[in-house]
């Protein structure tokens, strides 16, 4: 049976991945829509910026986030000015870091899905006097559904598996920032292989169950085939 500490890591991981995915869908959808539809000459610049977290090693991203969110960094000074204190070594800090780190995994599938929405479908809806909002929610969104499934799955799975950034920003504090991947790494480092194997197996099963249920819930709905 998993220990209390392990359950706590599981709960933290689920909360972190769930919250991160939700926030990423909220932030990523308008961003991806804009990237897919814009004719602005600045588009390649923004697309490159979105892909940036893929380039740097995670611990290096973590290091720069520490600098940014630290007492001397602009973000740190802003959060302190707001009276929120500092983000590093807190759960909120982990969420912010994960949103940045997993951004391309959500925005890129969404962008591709939106780009695949035919312009004609939107124009047809417009001739039927659908407002831009209506066109987005009644035409584009349902057509981009597979993109949303991929984006949520990648965003969630990537957050569960991320390690370098969460260790750097989280500081490995039990019950607050020690997520599964960090707890697992701790066991491996300390050559506690029995605990490591159990956690790794648990993690694979946990992620597997969540991902399978997500895929099931998001199955494309087809008309049942009728047999003659």
């Amino acid at each position, binding site marked *: 049976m998993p220990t209390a500490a392990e359950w706590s890591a599981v709960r933290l991981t689920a909360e972190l991945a769930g919250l991160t995915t939700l926030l990423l869908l909220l932030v990523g959808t308008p961003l991806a829509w804009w990237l897919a539809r814009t004719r602005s000459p600045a588009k390649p610049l923004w697309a490159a910026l979105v892909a940036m977290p893929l380039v740097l090693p995670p*611990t290096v991203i973590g*290091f720069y986030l*520490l*600098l940014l*969110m*630290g*007492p*001397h*960094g602009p973000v740190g000074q802003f959060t302190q000015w707001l009276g929120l204190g*500092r983000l*590093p*070594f807190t759960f909120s800090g982990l969420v912010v870091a994960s949103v940045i780190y997993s951004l391309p995994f959500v925005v890129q599938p969404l962008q591709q899905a939106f780009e695949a929405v035919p312009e004609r479908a939107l124009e047809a809806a417009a001739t039927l006097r659908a407002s831009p909002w209506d066109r987005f929610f009644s035409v584009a969104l349902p057509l981009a559904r597979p993109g949303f499934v991929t984006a949520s799955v990648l965003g969630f799975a990537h957050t569960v598996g991320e390690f370098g950034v969460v*260790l*750097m920003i989280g*500081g*490995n*504090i039990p019950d607050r920032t020690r997520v599964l991947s960090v707890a697992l*790494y*701790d066991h491996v*480092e*300390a*050559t506690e292989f029995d605990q490591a194997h159990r956690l790794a197996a648990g993690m694979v099963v946990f992620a597997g169950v969540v991902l399978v249920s997500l895929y099931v819930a998001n199955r494309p709905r087809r008309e049942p085939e009728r047999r003659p």
Partner: protein
Amino acid sequence: MKALLLGLSFPLLAAAAQAGQVQVAVAANFAGPIARIGAAFTAATGHELKVSSGATGKFYTQIVSGAPFEVLLAADDETPKRLVAEGHAVAGSAYTYAIGRLVLWSARPGFVDAQGAVLGSDQVRHVAIANPKVAPYGAAALEVIRARGLAEVLAPKLVTAESIAQAHQFAATGNAELGFVALSQVAVPGRPASGSYWLVPPRLYGEIRQDAVLLQAGVGNPAAAALLDFLKGDAAKALIRDAGYGP
């Protein structure tokens, strides 16, 4: 043209054969000093160091799995002993090249007092330590905290880094007001020490003996033997002392 290239490459090959190379795995806390020692070593012997720095525990796993390191400069004396016992290192080749010294450091000048009383202060919200399970400096830090009777007060304030290098980053960026790090990380020769620190009296923690050992892959490589000899010499000892390690 071909003949000319061949003619040119022969002397180069001959020189490479005389001046060997040695593949060294170095504990992260010694990464700075080894660069200066390596320069002196190359100047004295003509041999070249190929340095990989990282966590000693990680090197152990890699060496056991057949990593091509020839010499290990560990952060402890346990790992070299274990490698010898398991047949991955040469018996009798291990010796202590440095004794680590622990400091309580803050990036803020004047923040840490000479007695380390700041450790119990309310102004401190986070104290960074290296993971005590794997890093000897982290284990030493916990001993100091216990010796000061602050284990309970500090428990919720401790942030655990995967290595002493990361503990230093936590404190250097100011996110942790204090960090237990190696003296060699904050007092670099030729550079004024940044921030403020308390040199923890060695009686508060078990000695951090850092041992070097010849690994099986280095047997028969004259450059590997030369490096171990060089580390025992006065020139290297002076460099190691200047870097903030005890004899």
